């Protein structure tokens, strides 16, 4: 076996892959949340639709997005491989339930991860797939309708937002005098429709709760696996893992369906 294969086939190597893909997925969450903050703007979805177009058409981001899909797959596959080998390491279990004092999230990473995978599949089917469906079909079927926004460039105010009738459109921005016109796929409308269903909102909130607990253990655990356990920096990692990844990010994401359900 080559040195490289030996490294990544070892128990620590597999854990390294889990840690690196996990941390990469964490960084994506920051980008995803900051972009989605556009949903909170009262501009008929103009900023959000522009952002959705940017994320799907800007080449470097497309490359990163393929890395992201790969990371989700690898993280899942290695989780299964490691779990199977862990089960094999204890063929006969204990009769009495363990009473060792450990955190709930660290014991339930598999369960939390499964909820998240289910969430990712549904989430991507409803938004990512719908958005890309036209590209896949190759025809102008327009699963998601287009919207036209007119903005006064002098005052920065939105003049109008008009749903376009079904037809063949492409993302475009052009200026006539001081008026800027933007035509974009109205993903915002898909979001509005989805977040008006109470069970859909409930599922999102549950999934984001799972995300919170998954990252509460996962973020600091990844650094531990990498071997970054320096006494001076460990508290910083714990702080970021708890407040940013287990509190702010899940709360930020959960606020979107909740606000759309109650306030829009």
């Amino acid at each position, binding site marked *: 076996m080559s040195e490289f294969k030996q490294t990544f086939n070892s*128990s*620590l190597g597999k854990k390294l892959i889990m840690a690196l893909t996990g941390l990469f997925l964490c960084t994506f969450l920051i980008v995803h949340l900051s972009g989605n903050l556009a949903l909170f703007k009262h501009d008929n979805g103009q900023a959000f639709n522009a952002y959705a177009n940017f994320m799907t058409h800007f080449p470097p981001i497309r490359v990163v997005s393929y890395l992201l899909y790969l990371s989700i797959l690898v993280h899942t596959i290695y989780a299964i491989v490691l779990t199977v080998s862990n089960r094999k390491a204890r063929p006969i279990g204990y009769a009495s339930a363990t*009473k060792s004092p450990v955190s709930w999230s660290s014991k339930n990473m598999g369960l939390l991860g499964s909820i998240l995978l289910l969430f990712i599949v549904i989430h991507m089917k409803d938004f990512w797939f719908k958005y890309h469906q036209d590209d896949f079909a190759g025809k102008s079927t327009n699963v998601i309708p287009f919207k036209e926004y007119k903005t006064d460039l002098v005052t920065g105010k939105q003049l109008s937002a008009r749903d376009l009738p079904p037809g063949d459109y492409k993302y475009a921005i052009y200026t006539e005098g001081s008026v800027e016109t933007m035509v974009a796929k109205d993903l915002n409308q898909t979001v509005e429709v989805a977040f008006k269903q109470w069970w859909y909102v409930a599922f999102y909130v549950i999934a984001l709760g799972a995300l919170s607990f998954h990252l509460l253990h996962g973020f600091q655990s990844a650094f531990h696996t990498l071997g970054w356990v320096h006494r001076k920096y460990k508290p910083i990692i714990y702080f970021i893992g708890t407040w940013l990844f287990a509190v702010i990010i899940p709360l930020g994401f959960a606020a979107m369906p909740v606000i759309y359900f109650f306030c829009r």
Partner: protein
Amino acid sequence: MNLTLKVWRQKNAQTSGKFVTYKAESISEDMSFLEMLDVVNESLTKKGEEPIYFDHDCREGICGMCSLYINGRPHGPKRAITTCQLHMRSFKDGETITIEPWRAAAFPVIKDLAVDRSAFDRIQQAGGYVSINTGGVPDANEIPIPKVIADEAFNSATCIGCGACVAACKNASAMLFVSAKVSQLGMLPQGQPERWSRVQSMVAQMDEEGFGNCTNTGACEAECPKEISLTNIGRMNNDFFSAKLFREEGVHDHAQ
């Protein structure tokens, strides 16, 4: 004290075992857990039954021989002690106590509550040593070592190899044990010559023995009778990746 014991009885590694219930009567609360088992065994012997087989040796918490998974915790309900240091006053009168052997594929049951922990010996032999030159006896304290380093290495060296970390781990991982052995030598100047090959050989042997993988859950740290900290695992990971990815030293440079 009168207690009910649910004890795992298994004739040998080939046969499957089962729980058998025994009464432990008129037990003094000042007895250690192993002395309580001695009393039970004496009554079993008098009745002509096979006594309960369990591992023990020094009975003062330093040899690492005693084990026992008691009511869901290795070495029983108390923190930072071995089973031989556990006293019956830690239990209530009339309590039912479930006693199981360590459960891990790498620790096969020999008989009843005793398991074969020679996997640990093989990991230790794979790299847990330092090279010393023969010749005159060197002066004591000849090599300066900062106190913090000496203390930290000594903390890791207190591991008695009892296997409670494996027993407590939900994945039956041996990483706390291996990392303590890697750390205690890797931190000191005497351990430097083999530092990068040691971590590779010991981890390779650990994987070969069929232990599970660490999920940084921390049950090992909580149950270790010597309070070996999880930091050791981080240190081992660091050394391992450093050795594998950045050092020009293969696993077999020293090991073979």
